[in-house]
């Protein structure tokens, strides 16, 4: 039986099954018809038909981010493959494990400008962790297994496997079993004992410490979050998360001081600026986080735990780099801390917390309520209150609504917040929500959206409806590309060039046209009712929340400014004009 000849397509599916894959997201086309035919003849793998290949990658990302497993995509050659480029880049920037199978013209036609030929490995080389072109059916199984290993180990990322059609039709014996090692690629997971020693010494001696934790905590798995929570509680230090790290530490814990960075809290940014010890855990000192590099946390010693040496000393020099997996290194630190019966400097910490509480007193997320207009923050606060007792999965699009979601949703667990951080891809949220809902059929999944972003992948409503996925799309409709308008307010004297969302569809009717449910709230007192109705509906729902068109997202560190130069509200704006240097930054 084992020596039976299988076609390339059958081998592809066999590898998927051996890798534990039970669902893939895809879209057919000529080059992958053999795989689609093989899919038709089996039931082990479920195929979710998206409506555009870009949606397939984001769905796979949502699936992967919410489960910790590899998301799998199947698309055809040429336009199918090129449509995946944005999603692949997104997954690369946010370290999401995705295996993307692309069809290719038969090997003898490669390079001939054949119908639907594109140089897929050439195009995707810079936007994948690695990619392969399979040239012989005998390599197929090995390459596919390797692709899963590379995608999911070390710092996760997207891997493309380009599959010429003749390879899919050729036959070979399937022999390779699931492989766990690559010839040369071997991530380092454990810290050296002297590094742990030094880390513990620094932690014990710190007077104004802070944990700055990121997406690496989520990547490392739920155990890493538990260990982080334990270490933060043991030491009593404050903890701030990056956008990608939200949920890695419980949002309701009093030691959590909110997100940091451009739209982070006053207290988190000032604590970063004034700390004497920064412990960066799976966070990569992104420019959205550091602000002006030369004034970033000027007086602190910095420890950085990261699995990828390229994340270390890239933007910010650190004093103690520790290359390893967050979960493993945190366990090493905790063990050493307990064995040595170490104690934090409680007296100094008391003073530090007093200072932090004073900063928190500024209540930086407060906003002016209105009786007549729905404030976007209010809508999100109400959404949070209605859902906080449930195990809710949030995805977002990109813009102001994304930042408000990050500020107002206290996430208790990892893998619950799916957002496009590094690339900032509008249109990510809906397909990602679909992927999350596929992975967690009974969970509450909400895409917090803007009216502009949602239109970028609105076709995926059709997917949600076809598979009866009860995703909830909560649109904060300000009729503007709000984030763009905000920058135009701040930097271009309010010249709103092309940032108005004209000719919007009627989102309620739009929902209905997909046979989903459409709801609308126009007044603050309608918000609760609409949310309740949304939550009571076991079908896809689009909620059109008509919000204040002019509300801006604060706090904000203008680009090129430092952490202690935050703008706290609209009246703050004239105070710190953005520098010329800042104007060129994104």
């Amino acid at each position, binding site marked *: 039986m084992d020596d039976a000849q299988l076609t390339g397509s059958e081998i592809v599916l066999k590898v998927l099954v051996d890798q534990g894959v039970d669902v893939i997201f895809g879209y057919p086309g000529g080059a992958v018809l053999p795989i689609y035919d093989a899919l038709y003849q089996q039931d082990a793998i479920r195929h979710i038909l998206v409506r555009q290949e870009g949606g397939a990658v984001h769905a796979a990302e949502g699936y992967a981010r919410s489960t910790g497993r590899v998301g799998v995509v199947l698309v055809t050659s040429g336009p199918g493959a090129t449509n995946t480029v944005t999603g692949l880049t997104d997954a690369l920037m946010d370290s999401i494990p995705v295996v993307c199978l692309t069809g290719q013209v038969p090997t003898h036609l490669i390079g001939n400008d054949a119908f639907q030929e594109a140089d897929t490995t050439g195009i995707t080389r810079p936007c994948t962790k*690695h990619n392969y072109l399979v040239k012989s059916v005998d390599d197929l199984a090995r390459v596919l297994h390797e692709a899963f290993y590379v995608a999911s180990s*070390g710092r996760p990322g997207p891997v493309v496997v380009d599959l010429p059609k003749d390879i899919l039709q050729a036959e070979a014996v399937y022999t390779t079993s699931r492989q766990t090692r690559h010839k040369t690629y071997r991530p380092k997971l454990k810290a050296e004992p002297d590094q742990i020693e030094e880390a513990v010494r620094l932690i014990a001696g710190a007077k104004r410490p802070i944990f700055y934790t990121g997406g690496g905590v989520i990547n490392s798995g739920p155990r890493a979050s538990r260990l982080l929570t334990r270490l933060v509680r043991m030491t009593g230090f404050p903890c701030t998360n990056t956008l990608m790290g939200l949920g890695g530490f419980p949002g309701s814990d009093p030691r959590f001081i909110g997100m940091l960075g451009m739209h982070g809290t006053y207290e988190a940014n000032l604590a970063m600026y004034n700390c004497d010890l920064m412990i960066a855990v799976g966070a990569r000192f992104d420019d959205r986080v550091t602000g002006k590099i030369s004034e970033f946390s000027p007086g602190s010693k910095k420890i950085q735990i990261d699995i990828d040496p390229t994340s270390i*000393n890239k933007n910010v020099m650190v004093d103690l780099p520790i290359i390893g997996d967050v979960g493993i290194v945190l366990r090493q630190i905790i063990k050493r801390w307990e064995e040595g019966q170490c104690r934090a400097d409680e007296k100094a910490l008391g003073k530090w917390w007093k200072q932090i509480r004073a900063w928190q007193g500024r209540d930086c997320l407060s906003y002016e309520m209105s009786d007549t207009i729905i404030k976007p923050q209010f809508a999100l606060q109400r959404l949070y209150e209605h859902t906080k007792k449930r195990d809710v999965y949030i995805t977002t699009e990109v813009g102001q609504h994304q930042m408000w979601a990050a500020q107002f949703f206290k996430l208790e667990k990892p893998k619950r917040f799916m957002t496009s951080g590094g690339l900032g891809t509008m249109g990510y949220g809906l397909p990602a929500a679909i992927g999350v809902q596929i992975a967690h059929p009974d969970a509450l999944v909400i895409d917090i959206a803007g009216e502009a972003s949602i239109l970028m992948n609105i076709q995926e409503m059709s997917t949600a409806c076809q598979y009866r996925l009860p995703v909830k799309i909560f649109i904060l409709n300000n009729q503007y590309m709000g984030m763009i308008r905000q920058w135009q307010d701040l930097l271009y004297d309010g010249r709103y060039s092309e940032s108005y969302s004209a000719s919007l569809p009627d989102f309620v009717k739009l929902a209905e046209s997909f046979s989903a449910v459409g709801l609308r709230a126009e007044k603050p007192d309608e918000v609760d009712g609409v949310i309740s109705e949304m939550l009571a509906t076991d079908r896809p729902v689009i909620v059109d929340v008509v919000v204040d068109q002019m509300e801006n997202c604060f706090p904000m560190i203008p680009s090129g400014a430092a952490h202690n130069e935050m703008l706290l509200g609209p009246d703050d704006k004239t105070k710190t004009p953005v520098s010329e240097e800042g104007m060129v930054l994104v």
Partner: protein
Amino acid sequence: MEEEVNKHTISVLVDNETGVLARVIGLFSGRGYNIESLTVAEVDKRNSVSRITVVTSGTPMIIEQIKAQLSRLVPVHIVSDHTEEGPHVERELALIKVACSGEKRVESLRIADIFRARVVDSTNRSFVFEITGATEKLEAVIKLMTPLGLIEVSRTGVVAIARGDQSIASGNKSI
């Protein structure tokens, strides 16, 4: 933070598979790193391993990034920074075509002799010299040959190897 820009010679052992050179070059161009020279050839046929030697320059922080980025590429086995790791030999080969006659012809042969360049082709109006050595030596020859009628140069770029009894293959890739 040091801002000093230094030249580094780095050897990279890679699996000799399609696209691997594009990956390395794409890394340099995509991230805006310098390439002053780059050579590549298979060095281990049985295991299908190639060696890339790249001469690059940057601040210490950039050089550290370059090495980490190279190590992160899946088909890369080993990255070795000769400039950092100590005594090593660097060599480059150039073929230099000089077209001249009379006194200049004699002079070009004299210079070739001083620098131990070999004549590998000759017509009554030209020579092709082969010269091996450190980059500076090649440059000196080229400079001296230019007024004598140098019309074409072909260079390999730098290859390097550490001095002593240790092999690069005993180093480990850590990512």
